[in-house]
């Protein structure tokens, strides 16, 4: 992908200086947390560090009480 092919939002992001990106990232992160986001890593079975037992209750995925009640046709 070249710069010209990138979506406008990414082009704007790349126009920032590294430090501006870091500060903007802090703001985005604060909003994410304010909206209830958590800091648990997304479950990634392709990661060598993936341990299903490590997901804590309250995480978006893998909650102890979270069960699949119905699956759509595949």
């Amino acid at each position, binding site marked *: *992908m*070249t*710069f010209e*092919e990138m979506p406008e939002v990414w082009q704007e*992001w*790349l126009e*920032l200086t*590294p*430090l501006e*990106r*870091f500060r*903007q*990232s802090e703001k*985005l*992160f604060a909003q*994410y947390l304010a909206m209830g986001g*958590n*800091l*648990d*890593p*997304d479950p*990634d079975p*392709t*990661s*060598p*560090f993936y*341990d299903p*037992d*490590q997901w804590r209750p309250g995480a978006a995925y893998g909650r102890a009480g979270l069960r699949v009640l119905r699956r759509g046709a595949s």
Partner: protein
Amino acid sequence: MGGQACVFYGAAQVSKDVDLVLLAQEENFSRLRTALEQLNAKRIAVPRFDPALLARGHAVHFRCAAPGVEDLRIDIMTCLRDLPPFSALWERRTVITGDRGEEFHLLSIPDLVNAKKTQRTKDWPIIELLVAIHYRENGANPCPEWVEFWLAQARTPELLAELVQRFPNEARAQTSHRPLLRLAFSGEIEALRTALDAEVRAEQAKDRAYWAPLIAEFEAFRRAERAESGKGGAME
């Protein structure tokens, strides 16, 4: 060295954790322990913090509990697969100074690209972006080192086609290391895409092979800690 570095370089907008690569010296471990205590950080997974395990390629994972950084995850490593020793990484690092005088020491983009060559599918689009960003920012004033890096690491047929057109001699010199550059010369875009996918799969296989013995060790550590906690022990 990970997601936060990608934010600085522009290849990501947020990262949920902080990954640190550390010079393996007792003085640094001592400073790290002090910092982790200030952050009220607790280890959350195997292995335990042990310089010998870090030297074998393991990472140690912590979660913070101090006010203001609740739940923040910090991962520590001292060596990375297929990357040179810390001294070389440090020599090539990027330093960014903040407006409050703080310093951020980042893996250089070429080192970060190599560090991201993992079995995780999510890392590969990041590599594509890092190389494209580096080319955009340095393409107007290319030095031989950068040209070699772009030709070795570019991950889209379009960028590769542009590079071989612009730097034909350097590209020919690299075809023995990266045979798919021949396809970029001949403009076989679909074949190039297939070859790029094959490159990813080969690198992912290398990463899996690297981690296989370490994962076997994880399992042994997990079993040992479960057995220990069954006897009333606790994680550090």
